[in-house]
């Protein structure tokens, strides 16, 4: 379980996002990966090979473990995306043959 270590900058507005239909309160300026981890969400997707759960690892854009679907767009890096109010996030999936 992750906790925020410091108070957020009071100048940053609270934002509301949704993950798999669940509403999550986040803080403007933080990354989507940080917001989801702080809300207790650690499984961002499943390995397409083994089906094993996957979540953020490097938190700096290198490992591509934190991919999620944002507002219908699959394969987005949660650790490189700043939260926006109203973001609708789903666990990432690869559907073969999908255009």
């Amino acid at each position, binding site marked *: 379980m992750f906790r925020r270590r410091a108070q957020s900058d009071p100048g940053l507005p609270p934002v509301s996002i949704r993950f798999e239909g669940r509403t999550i309160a986040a803080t403007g300026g933080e990354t989507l990966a940080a917001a989801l981890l702080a809300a207790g969400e650690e499984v961002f997707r499943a*390995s*397409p*090979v083994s089906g094993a759960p996957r979540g953020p690892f490097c938190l700096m854009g290198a490992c*591509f473990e934190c*991919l999620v679907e944002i507002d219908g767009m*699959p*394969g987005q890096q949660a650790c490189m995306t700043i939260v926006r109010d109203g973001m609708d996030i789903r666990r990432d999936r*690869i559907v*073969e*043959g*999908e*255009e």
Partner: protein
Amino acid sequence: MVGGGLVGLAVAYGLARRGRSVLVLDEGDEARPASVGNFGLVWTQSKGLGLPAYSAWTARSARLWTDFAATLAAETGIDVRYRQVGGLHLCLNEAEVEARTRFVAQMQSQMVTAGVRVEMLDRAQTRDLAPAISNAVVGASWSPLDGDANPLFLMRSLIEAGQTQGMRRRTRQRVAAIRPGDAGYELELHDGTRLSAARVVLAAGLGNAVLAASLGKSFPVRPERGQILVTRRMPRFLGLPTSLVRQTDEGSVLLGDSKEDVGFDYGTTPEIGARIAARSIASFPVLRTATVVRSWGALRVMSPDGFPIYQTWPDLPGLWALACHSGVTLAAAHAGPLADAIDGGAAPAEISQFTTGRFDVPSARAV
């Protein structure tokens, strides 16, 4: 050992296993080594047209690879993901099939001598091995001796295995010059530090040209750029490598077969990336919706004819200079029979022609 890439590490590990005291000087990531940018094939089927000894040497290494990978795993616990599952070179039209058939026929006698089986497959036979191919694939050449490995795990395991055997390694050590000294050789590092060694192996890739020049010798190597795209991890669709597309056991797909002469520029270009992607998609329709997460360029270390150089000079005793563009494929031979030769053992018959002397006369070009 001047150079801590796959060539230097494999030989250094081999020498350390033979009880030699080895110090590896590694320039580090600034050198942009081919060892961390390559495609990871262990490949025999296209190697050596014009120099049968290179076919034989490559085949020997491929046959040593199974034991080599098992030994590394036992010594380090690192599985370098070696798979000897055969390899395909796909042909996308009749003209390509014809050209490849001619090439395989030209190679036939030297491949038989080397013990490598290379066959042309039709579409149905290719599909048996790679069910995900498109109908655009007309045929393929195939060798059961081919396979692939993870070059990054290979590098890590060679470092760990070598260190277990007493090999020492210093990083961020760029050797600026080398000259004969009182007891062997004196190496001058970029920061002015001097080191001396009784015996020296130069395995600095493209840097060998400069190091050899500091000894008054010619060592002709030039960069040849290859670009690689890698996709996000995908469900497995390909169980054996092709010369253009390979899927790792983690599901990532590497794409790339380009060859460009652009000097020391290791960048990428949209034109080449698009060409690689288009041909990959034409070969495997499942890639149509793949997401590319990264691309990079890396520089192959090429001699004038593309074959390896393992050089000694009569007036420079105890000094070897090595270069090749197949550091993964040849790693097993480098850690085994080549390390034996450098350690003073008999030189394997295959490598007697891997000297710069062959450039003094007109010779065949590598394919």
